[in-house]
């Protein structure tokens, strides 16, 4: 086995003996991309279903005021985009082999993710306090609560999963059992969570502002 084959085998597993990866990326990264695509279709389905309900209902509620809801969502957006930046810092630091810096960036991302989740729960509690339930609300179409809680809840679930994944990767990268490639793959997932939020905010919140 040549040196290049040995390197390829180490990077890509035994499949490398048979053929090169067509995308020149490790299989774990390609798997994460495929997961992201399937997850994008899931979010696409729920957001499109929401869109049809929203447009078809004549009494769709528009309950979001600047304070507290929209201000809260603005802070959440800032926090999530900033967490993507710290994740990028972690990925690049890991590639440079700077474990201390990687660790700092990863834990910063965890902290920002936790702040986002906390603000999200505060938003939910505010809505519940105003009488919004899955199939009833004081304002109009009974499906408003179902779509609001399902879509934002699905996104929040992804945030929780991301926080847990980053904690695991941060600990294992620090003790040397995971590599920079694992940090990068986790980063892809976290950026996807950020990307989905860019569609959730306009569709769920900004088209339902109380003018």
């Amino acid at each position: 086995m040549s040196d290049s084959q040995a390197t390829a085998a180490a990077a890509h597993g035994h499949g490398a003996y048979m053929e090169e990866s067509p995308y020149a990326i490790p299989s774990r990264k390609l798997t994460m991309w495929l997961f992201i695509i399937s997850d994008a279709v899931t979010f696409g389905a729920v957001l499109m279903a929401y869109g049809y309900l929203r447009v078809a209902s004549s009494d769709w509620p528009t309950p979001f005021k600047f304070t507290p809801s929209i201000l809260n969502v603005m802070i959440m957006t800032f926090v999530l985009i900033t967490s993507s930046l710290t994740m990028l810092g972690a990925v690049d630091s890991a590639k440079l082999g700077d474990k201390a810096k990687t660790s700092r960036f990863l834990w910063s991302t965890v902290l920002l993710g936790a702040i986002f989740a906390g603000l999200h729960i505060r938003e939910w509690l505010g809505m519940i306090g105003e009488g919004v339930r899955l199939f009833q609300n004081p304002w109009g179409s009974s499906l408003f609560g179902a779509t609001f809680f399902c879509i934002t809840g699905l996104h929040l679930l992804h945030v929780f999963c991301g926080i847990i994944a980053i904690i695991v990767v941060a600990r294992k990268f620090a003790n040397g059992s995971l590599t920079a490639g694992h940090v990068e793959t986790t980063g892809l997932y976290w950026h996807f969570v950020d990307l989905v939020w860019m569609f959730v905010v306009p569709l769920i919140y900004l088209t339902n502002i109380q003018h």
Partner: protein
Amino acid sequence: MALAPKSPNVIAKYLPIYFLLLAIAGIEFFVAFRITSTTALLTLLLGFAVCSAALALLFFMHLVEERRALFFSLIPATIFVLLMMNMIWSDSYRLLRMKPFPH
């Protein structure tokens, strides 16, 4: 006395995209309070969301640095599936009422 090598600022190269994403988000919030027509607002906001998503995909998820084959295998197919799903949703809504949309 030799100084310790300074660690590079790894996030500096991403700052322009970061500020651009924050700016787009800011514009979205601004226009949401300015435009009252739901159709116009939805079209504009979706346009901004697609721009933000493209920036995140290309620069934060490094798709711009990968082989073109990865981009062309993933993104057009995903957009096609999402568009087709959009067609199916409208059809399922029509079938729910067992009649075509009113003209």
